[in-house]
């Protein structure tokens, strides 16, 4: 099979087309818009049998996606950044309905200040909602993740909506060779949606969105959703093996790269992990035993697989492309919490914040992170969390501030 050059957005659209969706509520936002535009063109050309409606905001878009899914049809929608946050009320609400659909989020950093370029604060804001999350690092993965997401979310042991995340610009607008499964292959993996009891049907009325007071019923339903999410871990592994049989492509909830004999490991999400792999290869040539661990599945959090990958490592450099204001890196906190009780936990976790608002992380910076982590492991002293930011950048920033007439409380 010959690969096709596709952008991340194009790959997402291809996946959606292969999934044979029935309904697409949409609302434009950069850098996502290309996905809905591509799908719109296919619908217009009669190549996709699907209804598409542009709504008046993401709030109504996510609502429409949830309600359509609750009627038992296959639904897709996409957004980014401010759009995901604007629809956040409904993200929680529709997750509780247990009506599965797929939402592609093309990561873009949040206001303020305003930007168009990516980091992960947008998608991580949906972390606790009940949506499952698959994070991609290549365009191939984006296409495959869309198909996996439908299988996963629709599985009767799960029944939850899924966010597939790709980084704006670095993936959304970058062309990479992608193998596109044939219609037949896709259909073998993903049968038409059987919504089971989830439907709105004349003659069989159901009542949804019922209020519960007193806490007991509320606790029950929230915990049920949590258990369904946890259940999705084994289902994910199961369907990945099936996908591998059909396409030959191997996916696991956690990707490990050169980790077996590694002493130092990078731990991170998303497309910058491909740069980390490059750094790993370079560092290996210098004799340093380095590897990479990257969760693909972020919700549910694949704790056991991560613990296995990191067992007995000397040090982990956690690269957070997000910032929880007043706390630090979100991934660092998540990782710490699962390792605390583990006997074979790594000696040190070093926290780095990088790639905010689309700032690049250079290979040299990966070298530096490895160096700092080695030092921490040897000395047993964990350094303070560090923002990846160069002296040149700071000097440029100071220059801009002097033009603007610096009135901000600087440091």
């Amino acid at each position, binding site marked *: 099979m010959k690969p096709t050059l596709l952008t991340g957005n194009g790959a997402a659209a291809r996946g959606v087309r292969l999934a044979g969706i029935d309904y697409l509520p*949409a609302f*434009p*936002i*950069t850098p996502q*818009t290309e996905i809905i*535009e591509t799908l*719109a063109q296919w619908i*217009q050309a009669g190549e996709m049998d699907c209804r*598409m409606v*542009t709504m*008046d*905001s*993401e709030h109504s878009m996510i609502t429409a996606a949830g309600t359509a899914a609750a009627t038992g049809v296959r639904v897709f929608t996409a957004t980014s950044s*401010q759009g995901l946050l*604007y629809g956040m009320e409904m993200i929680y609400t529709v997750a509780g309905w247990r009506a599965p659909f797929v939402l592609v989020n093309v990561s873009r950093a949040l*206001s303020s200040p*305003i930007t168009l370029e990516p980091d992960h604060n947008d998608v991580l804001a949906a972390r606790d909602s009940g949506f499952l999350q698959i994070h991609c690092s290549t365009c191939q993965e984006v296409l495959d993740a869309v198909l996996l997401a439908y299988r996963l979310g629709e599985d009767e042991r799960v029944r939850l909506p899924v966010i597939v995340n790709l980084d704006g610009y670095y993936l959304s607008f970058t062309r990479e060779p992608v193998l596109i499964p044939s219609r037949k292959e896709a259909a073998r993996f993903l049968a038409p949606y059987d919504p089971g009891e989830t439907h709105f049907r004349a003659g069989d009325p159901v009542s949804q969105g019922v209020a519960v007071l007193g806490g007991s019923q509320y606790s029950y339903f929230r915990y049920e959703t949590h258990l369904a999410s946890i259940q999705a871990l084994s289902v994910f592994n199961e369907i990945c093996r099936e996908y591998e049989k059909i396409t030959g492509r191997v996916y696991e909830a956690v990707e490990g790269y050169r980790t077996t004999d590694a002493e130092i490991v990078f731990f991170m999400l998303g497309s910058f992990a491909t740069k980390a792999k490059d750094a790993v290869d370079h560092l290996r040539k210098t004799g340093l035993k380095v590897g990479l661990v990257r969760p693909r599945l972020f919700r549910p959090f694949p704790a056991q697989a991560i613990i296995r990958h990191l067992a007995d490592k000397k040090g982990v450099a956690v690269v957070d492309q997000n910032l929880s204001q007043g706390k630090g890196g979100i991934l660092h906190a998540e990782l710490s919490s699962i390792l605390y009780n583990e006997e074979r936990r790594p000696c040190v976790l070093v926290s780095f914040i990088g790639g905010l608002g689309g700032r690049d992380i250079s290979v040299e910076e990966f070298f530096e992170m490895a160096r700092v982590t080695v030092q921490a492991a040897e000395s047993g002293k964990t350094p303070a969390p560090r923002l990846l930011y160069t002296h040149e950048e700071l000097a440029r920033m100071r220059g801009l501030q002097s*033009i603007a007439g610096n009135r901000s409380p600087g440091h």
Partner: protein
Amino acid sequence: MIAEITRIRHKYLRHDKKFPHVWCPGCGIGIVLGSLIRAIDGLGLAKNDLVLASGIGCSGRLPAYVDFNTLHTTHGRALTFSTGIKLANPSLNVLTVMGDGDATAIGGNHFIHAARRNLNLTAIIINNQIYGMTGGQYSPTTPYGSNSTTSPYGHIEHAFSIADLAVTSGASYVARGTVYHVPALDKLISRGIEKEGFSVIEIMTNCHTQYGRRNEMSDPVTMMKWFKDHAVTTTRAKKMSPEELKGKFSIGVLTDIDKPSYTEEYQKIRDRAKGREVKS
């Protein structure tokens, strides 16, 4: 004349920092910017007392170019930012620039409620009948039957009239202008800024790039000509029959009424609470 234009530009624009601007050649938003700074200059308003807030979109970029207090906010929320500023500091002149999508789709609720409350704000709505910035998707003002990237077979929804919506929602001053009728536009904006209470100036603007090209008006001149041929002044419209008015739109002042603004009423309550005498 040239000296005058240069004087205004240097006084009100961030001419040495922010240009060239991002708009397409021939875009009508630049004409709106010109009208706005002429109106402000004519009123002799102090730059320090002026605030210009905008949402997100091609129209939302406008505050980047002017040299007074500016705020580039989030899509749809510009009026709520302005509300906060005005209520905390009523002595400021607060202007709000929005696109048609900004003001009537994702931010539609804020718009009707700001008008209903009759906040003492000036809303300048740049109506190019499309989502310009994101690639030409239909907006709530895209005309029935016209083409956009999301209505390739012709739009099947009906459009809002922004000005009529403002009138029925309770705004004190509502006017409509176009980027073709520029001297009139200067005056409409100027009157809107002066007015106590919520004032709305809807400005019909050419987005030939995203709207025009899909609707047989691919250049600014054709779109200007369309504005020229389809706009009727409110005075003339009164004398025309519904038949004659079909397909046309009116320009000029649609409403100019006096009623207490929210800002004044609120001040009265404060004064009363402090035991001061209330001016009637």
